[in-house]
């Protein structure tokens, strides 16, 4: 960035340049209208200042009189002009802004799936390979990255200015965001939703690495302890430990419905109605099993409210995800898979 545009943060994601382009357009339009209005006011204020206009100047002729009164034909034309032109411009802004927004909220298929949990006042991240980080997030360059987020306490907001992404992290459900880093380096990570005393301390960094370096980093367990088990493996262990596996048999013959291929499918509910089985649905079904009963099953599952941490829930979901779709494939891509 040159020094006149010092306030444009680094463009480190695929959408950053698009957002900035739209921003320049907005600045140009607003700048034009601001200068137009300011210029007219200054011009009129001098041109028609009382020292330049005689008091009791000759009566204005009728046509002009009507115009300056704001209800002649010319005046109505003016009103129409300055209603229609701003309206048209507003609709252009709306359309542009909305199409940009759809880019921002739709993660591309096959994105690398990472998890984040916000709590007062730190960010916890989990990689599918099991590596955990606090307030630092390492991601590979040039890859779509999807972040599924929840909060343990109050509302937080995941904000990386260099990526131009922001998404509130809401307790009790999952929200998501995605980005595609285009530049290696370390970038600010902020919490953007006020969350209490150390709100301004809930900051961290996102480090974008060459994929090769990222893999090496993962292999050493993020430079920390021994590389642990993958998220899905941890989830599978929980699935057995908490005896989920005794009822949710893969063949659908158990007391609970089979979870094979459930994530992403549409589930029929008892008493009519369906629900799209996303991560929030799986989460709700674990914590509050009575809320939505799958058609043909008896509501008998105990609640796990207060017995599982947000991280454990994410592990379980990572495991359920590996149970795959009905076509049998589609385990979440890891770095290696996505690179191919």
């Amino acid at each position, binding site marked *: 960035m040159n020094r006149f545009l010092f306030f444009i943060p680094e463009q480190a994601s695929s959408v950053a340049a698009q957002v900035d382009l739209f921003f320049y357009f907005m600045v140009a339009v607003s700048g034009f209208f601001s200068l137009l209005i300011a210029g007219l006011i200054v011009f009129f204020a001098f041109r028609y200042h009382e020292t330049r206009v005689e008091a009791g100047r000759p009566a204005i002729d009728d046509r002009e009189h009507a115009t300056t009164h704001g209800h002649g034909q010319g005046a109505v034309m003016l009103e129409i002009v300055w209603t229609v032109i701003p309206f048209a411009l507003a609709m252009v802004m709306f359309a542009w802004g909305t199409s940009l927004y759809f880019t921002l*909220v*739709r*993660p*591309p*298929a*096959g*994105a690398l*799936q990472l998890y984040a949990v916000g709590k007062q006042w730190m960010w916890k991240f989990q990689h599918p390979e099991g590596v955990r980080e606090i307030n630092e997030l390492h991601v590979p360059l040039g890859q779509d990255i*999807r972040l599924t987020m929840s909060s343990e306490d109050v509302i937080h907001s995941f904000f990386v200015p260099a990526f131009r992404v922001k998404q509130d992290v809401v307790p009790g459900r999952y929200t*998501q965001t*995605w980005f595609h880093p285009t530049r290696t380096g370390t970038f600010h990570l902020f919490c953007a939703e006020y969350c209490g005393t150390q709100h301004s301390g809930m900051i961290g960094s996102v480090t974008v690495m060459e994929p090769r370096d990222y893999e090496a980093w993962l292999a050493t367990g993020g430079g920390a302890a021994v590389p642990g088990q993958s998220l899905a493996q941890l989830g599978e262990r929980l699935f057995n430990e908490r005896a989920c596996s005794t009822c949710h048999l893969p063949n659908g013959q158990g007391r609970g419905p089979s979870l094979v291929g459930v*994530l*992403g499918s549409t589930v029929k509910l008892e008493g*009519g109605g369906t*629900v*799209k089985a*996303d991560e929030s649905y799986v989460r709700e079904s674990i914590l509050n099993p009575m809320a939505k009963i799958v058609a043909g099953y008896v509501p008998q599952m105990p609640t796990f409210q207060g017995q599982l941490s947000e991280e454990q829930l994410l592990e379980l979901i990572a495991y359920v995800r590996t149970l795959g779709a009905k076509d049998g494939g589609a385990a979440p891509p890891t770095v290696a898979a996505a690179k191919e």
Partner: protein
Amino acid sequence: MSEHVVPFKIYAVIFATLLLLTLVTVDVATYNFGMMNIYVALAVATTKATLVILYFMHVRYAPALVAVFAAAGFVWLLLLLTFALSDFLTRGWIVGFMG
């Protein structure tokens, strides 16, 4: 003070209708019409409220301005409900949410 004095008979008829509608709404609720139940219940309630407003509250005999005021609150409440629901009804629609 030349307010319209409503005849007793009209009050009596309205009162009887209100009681009848209460019985109707209780009775209808014992059948399961699925989603229709709530619509029927709300339709009956709205009918009752309209009767109260028009006759007991004299809006039928009052200037148009009063009728506008009487309607305004309900219209605005509908705006609140509609636009708030625009969020909750469409949350599940997100295309490509699962990636």
